[in-house]
């Protein structure tokens, strides 16, 4: 029976998710342990929760990037690349499923940490405290409507997600180029990674600057528009997404046309 391309993609994706399970568990356990520790020990100084939260958030955000090297490199180290390359699927599916799995890992990790921090904040900061903070922010001229908080937060989160996809795509591209040589594969991967990062930065910076100049009049202290700010974040995200697509396509082309055993 013929299997659909989508089913093949999700089979690859679920395999990658299985490979990433230990890292996701690490974030989950670290969040639980640290949050619990701070809840018990730091009740007198509730402000210190910002420390562990940032620390685990950093871990959750950094792990998918590190895992991107593990996920692809392990295929060669454990010879499963023989299986992967013999499957009747193209590089887009193989690398796409790995990218999606790593983004899922990022999503899980950051959601776990954020949820943990929010719960901890609610437990440590009594209800009137949080409301008071919001009231203070409002009187300082900051738009604290739920709708605004959600839209700006979502946009920021999307930007971070695209940023993660961007570095993962560069990681794939540089690793695959590194695999084209038998000697000095590691140093070549590192050089290609830095060079691609630099080159893509050179390509995207003028576009970011242009978007920034356009949004500038609506974003000074006397005339701050949250809509203009959101637009700026959205445009910057789109530029980064375009960069991600370019690097990802380059990685797929290398996989399809250059990688051999």
């Amino acid at each position, binding site marked *: *029976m*013929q*299997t659909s391309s989508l*089913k*093949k993609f999700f*089979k690859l994706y679920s*395999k990658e998710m*299985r*490979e990433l399970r230990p890292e996701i568990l690490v974030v989950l356990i670290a969040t639980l342990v640290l949050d619990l520790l701070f809840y018990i020990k730091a009740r007198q100084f509730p402000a210190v929760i910002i420390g562990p939260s940032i620390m685990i958030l950093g871990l959750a955000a950094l792990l998918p990037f590190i895992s991107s090297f593990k996920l692809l490199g392990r295929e060669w180290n*454990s*010879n*499963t*690349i*023989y*299986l992967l*390359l*013999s*499957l*009747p*699927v193209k590089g887009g599916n193989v690398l796409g499923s790995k990218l999606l799995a790593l983004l899922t890992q990022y999503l899980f990790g950051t959601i776990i940490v954020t949820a943990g921090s929010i719960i901890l904040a609610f437990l440590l900061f009594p209800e009137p405290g949080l409301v008071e903070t919001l009231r203070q922010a409002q009187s300082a001229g900051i738009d604290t409507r739920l709708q605004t908080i959600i839209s700006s937060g979502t946009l920021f989160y999307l930007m971070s997600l695209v940023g993660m996809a961007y570095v993962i795509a560069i990681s794939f591209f540089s690793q695959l180029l590194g695999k084209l040589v*038998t000697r000095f594969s590691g140093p070549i991967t590192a050089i290609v990674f830095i060079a691609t990062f630099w080159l893509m930065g050179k390509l995207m910076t003028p576009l970011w600057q242009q978007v920034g100049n356009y949004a500038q009049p609506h974003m000074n202290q006397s005339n701050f528009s949250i809509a203009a700010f959101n637009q700026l974040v959205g445009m910057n995200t789109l530029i980064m997404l375009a960069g991600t697509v370019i690097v990802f396509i380059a990685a797929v082309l290398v996989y399809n046309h250059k990688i*051999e*055993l």
Partner: protein
Amino acid sequence: MIEFKDVSKKFGSTIALNDVSLVFPRGKIIGLFGPNGAGKSTSIKLIMGLNRPDRGEVRVDGENPQNKKQDMAYLPEIDHLYPWMNIAQAADFTRTFYADWDETKYRELIKFLNLQENMKIAKISKGQRAKTKLLLTVSRRAPYLLMDEPLSGIDILTREEIINTLIRDYREGEQTIIISTHEIAEVESLVDEVIFLDKGKVKLSGNAEDLRVERNMSLVELMKEAFRDAN
């Protein structure tokens, strides 16, 4: 039909195949023989699309091997299965990608090979891993079955099981099996056609029975003679 047209392949300064032209006829069991470094594995990888020729071309039914992967079942010499999977998971993974997966055959073979679905790849013996690879490859009704050193490092009983499985499931005229090995004695009775490779060149090729009758020698003796001359 698989065709090599003036194929050359180098790895660094090592010549794996040197201007090789070959035809692997359809529906036969073909033995690809030769000592280590003769170019057997490279030939199989070229057919499978895992390597690309530096010069010349490889065609499978007139097409680029990259576009024929769904028609080929590949059994590499090395362990290429995900070690965290058990046999059932590995079968489920393989089944998803190939329309020619035969569930009935898989069920029969798992019993025939004395394997159990809950056996974890990382924890089973080398012989059981070899049988698992065979199980996953032969459970497909693929037009081409490519086996790279399927008997290497396997004990005699497991070898027998592997060969019996191949004999049991071979569909003559329909399926092409290419077996690369230097254990000629074990597969002598199995092969219809033989190709002897040495240092990336075809040393001798032809119908196994014709060669045996013509030279009054077994394939093992033929290989010894061919490579004694070469050295």
